[in-house]
């Protein structure tokens, strides 16, 4: 008796023909020489599907407007389980897709598989390569960090410099050369709405043409019996796909894709770098300067694409064994050497980047709610080692009273008096006097007054850069002009959410010479030690909105 599902499948096939179509597809006859070298096309299709799948997952938690884009991606990376992995798959999948598409193309080129009657298959393939690069170009902007922003600024400038078409391209990419909401929306629509269906259609057409003309035989194949696509070749495709997937998954798990600081259009120090597969173009641009620049940015790439498309019409000779295609090999070798050389030069001349501070928002953030004075209080609290005698909530030493309970009964004046002369306020106490000045004691008291069993964890969680940064903040009286977490004056701008507005380098330079970066600012210049500068800047950039 036939299994039950067999009956269902037969019914479905009679009604739709789907099974017959699949059998017909799998029963394709392929030349005897077919084997491992033909797997790359299937791997490319597989990688495209992985990109589509992970892309949809990312889009589910993504807000496609500048600023929000950055915050929502940060949310995906830090708040959502598996978010980092899915972004890793999407990021490295893009790179892998470029590699596999290029290898596929090189294989077809070396074997001369573009020759009559397969010219259109090749030309469609070149278009698919351009579409793949288009994904890379448009997707690069979507995280809206400094890297994304500045990389795209360069790209739009290049497009604008194209002869004749330049002004039109600029308008198409969102207007006056500035990268903003309009450009962002257009890149997003391109990446998510226009390119995917286009890619599907092109792949379908490409595969249709492959089937129409059959897999390219090599000279000598005619004499040998042909093979079936399924299951032998499908098996090879599957194994190749598995290898590619294993590499991709390992990359996604092991190599962390950074999210830099929020895009800062006023950052004059950021040096944009393109993705690795565009580095050779980037280097070409560096070599050709002045009036030659347009040659490197538009003319050469344009000619290269034209040449690629026209390959089947340039080489119209008869099919030769791959080992006798020396000219083709020489071409590939030359292109490979040129590409590698330019990329290596670009890598070698990479300027040392300033160490970017990636703030870890996944950790506890309760300390961020404290005022600078209270945070400075934590610094003194640690410096004076108060926990040696006092308990903070559960556990800890029982020598002195639990400090999370004191604030209810005491005021600041009592505390400061107590810090200075413990014996006078509480006769018989074993507590030593604290050797700090009045302002410092004020900070300590401010923190202790706010301390209660619920926020005691902030005391443990506050990172050193924050407490030390707050010390510098207090010592320089920044609060007499600036406001943090609702504390301080409003002469200067409030400092919460600074990382959204300014980059690290901007903040650091601004300390040294405020008038230069903010003309008309009444802020005096500050000269800090490198350590103080680092702590203060990191602290300020960590302030929540």
């Amino acid at each position, binding site marked *: 008796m036939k299994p039950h599902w067999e009956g269902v499948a037969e019914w479905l096939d009679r009604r739709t023909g789907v099974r017959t179509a699949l059998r017909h597809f799998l029963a394709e006859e392929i030349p005897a020489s077919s084997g491992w070298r033909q797997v790359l096309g299937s791997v490319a299709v597989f990688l495209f599907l992985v990109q589509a*799948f992970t892309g949809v*997952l990312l889009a589910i938690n993504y807000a496609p407007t500048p600023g929000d884009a950055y*915050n929502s991606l940060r949310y995906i990376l830090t708040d959502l*389980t598996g978010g980092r992995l*899915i972004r890793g798959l999407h990021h490295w999948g893009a790179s892998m897709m470029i590699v596999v598409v290029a290898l596929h193309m090189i294989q077809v080129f070396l074997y001369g598989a573009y020759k009559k009657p397969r010219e259109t298959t090749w030309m469609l393939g070149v278009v698919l390569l351009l579409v793949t690069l288009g994904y890379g170009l448009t997707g690069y902007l979507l995280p809206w960090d400094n890297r994304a922003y500045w990389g795209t600024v360069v790209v739009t400038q290049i497009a604008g410099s194209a002869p004749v078409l330049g002004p039109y391209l600029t308008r198409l990419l969102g207007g006056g050369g500035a990268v903003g909401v309009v450009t962002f929306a257009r890149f997003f629509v391109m990446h998510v709405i226009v390119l995917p269906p286009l890619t599907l259609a092109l792949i379908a057409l490409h595969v249709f043409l492959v089937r129409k003309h059959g897999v390219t035989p090599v000279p000598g194949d005619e004499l040998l*019996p042909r093979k079936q696509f399924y299951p032998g070749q499908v098996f090879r495709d599957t194994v190749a796909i*598995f290898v590619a997937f294993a590499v991709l998954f390992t990359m996604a798990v092991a190599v962390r894709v950074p999210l830099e600081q929020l895009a800062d259009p006023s950052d004059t120090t950021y040096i944009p770098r393109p993705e690795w597969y565009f580095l050779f173009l980037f280097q070409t641009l560096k070599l050709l300067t002045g009036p030659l620049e347009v040659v490197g940015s538009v003319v050469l790439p344009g000619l290269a694409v034209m040449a690629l498309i026209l390959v089947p019409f340039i080489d119209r000779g008869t099919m030769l064994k791959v080992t006798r295609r020396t000219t083709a090999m020489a071409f590939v070798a030359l292109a490979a050497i040129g590409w590698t050389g330019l990329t290596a030069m670009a890598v070698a001349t990479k300027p040392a980047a300033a160490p970017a501070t990636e703030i870890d928002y996944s950790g506890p953030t309760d300390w961020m709610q404290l005022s600078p004075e209270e945070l400075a209080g934590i610094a003194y609290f640690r410096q004076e080692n108060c926990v040696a005698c006092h308990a903070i909530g559960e556990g800890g030493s029982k020598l002195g009273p639990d400090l999370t309970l004191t604030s209810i009964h005491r005021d600041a004046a009592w505390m400061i008096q107590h810090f200075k002369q413990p014996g006078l306020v509480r006769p018989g106490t074993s507590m030593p006097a604290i050797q700090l000045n009045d302002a410092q004691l004020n900070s300590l008291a401010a923190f202790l007054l706010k301390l209660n069993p619920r926020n005691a964890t902030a005391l443990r969680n506050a990172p050193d850069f924050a407490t030390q940064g707050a010390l510098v903040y207090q010592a320089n009286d920044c609060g007499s002009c600036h406001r943090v977490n609702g504390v301080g004056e409003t002469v200067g701008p409030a400092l919460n959410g600074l990382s959204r507005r300014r980059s690290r380098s901007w903040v650091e330079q601004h300390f040294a010479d405020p008038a230069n970066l903010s003309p008309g600012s009444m802020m005096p210049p500050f000269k800090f030690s490198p350590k103080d500068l680092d702590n203060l800047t990191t602290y300020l950039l960590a302030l929540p909105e």
Partner: protein
Amino acid sequence: MSQSPELEGPTRRRFYVSAIYAIGGIIGAALSAPALVYLFSSPKSRQNSQWVEAGDVASLEPDQPVELVFHRNRVDGWKVVSEKGTAWVVKNPDRSVTAFGPQCTHLGCAYHWEASKDEFVCPCHNSVFSLDGKVLSGPAPRSLDRFETRIEDGKLLIGSLRPSSGIPA
């Protein structure tokens, strides 16, 4: 060419087919497992439940519900939004305080206190609740939801909203 295609032996063919299915299964699992976790696990909360001040306990009259307004921050995905919240607050005779969520447990309409009848009344479908939040009549399926509350230095602090048990009161 009229040669029939070369077919693999049955053993090799079986090996190919099972390998294709096995590898397909592994890749499918490796992609769908993280996707399911990503879609169905709840986001790591960026802040613990927050306590906000809603007013002085001393100003409350026993058994006289008042609607108190407070401001609290709520994490909404990648944003923290500051929003207004309200609670119907009752000081009980034993000096403890109860704070009811402001929505009817039937379909979420805002209800109000009818001082003349000593009842909470929902205008949408006529659900009626007693002073302690129990359903007196109408379609409401359960008692009014309650906020966590605590009193510190004479101030009423409001925590998160706890749904009342589903058992009809």
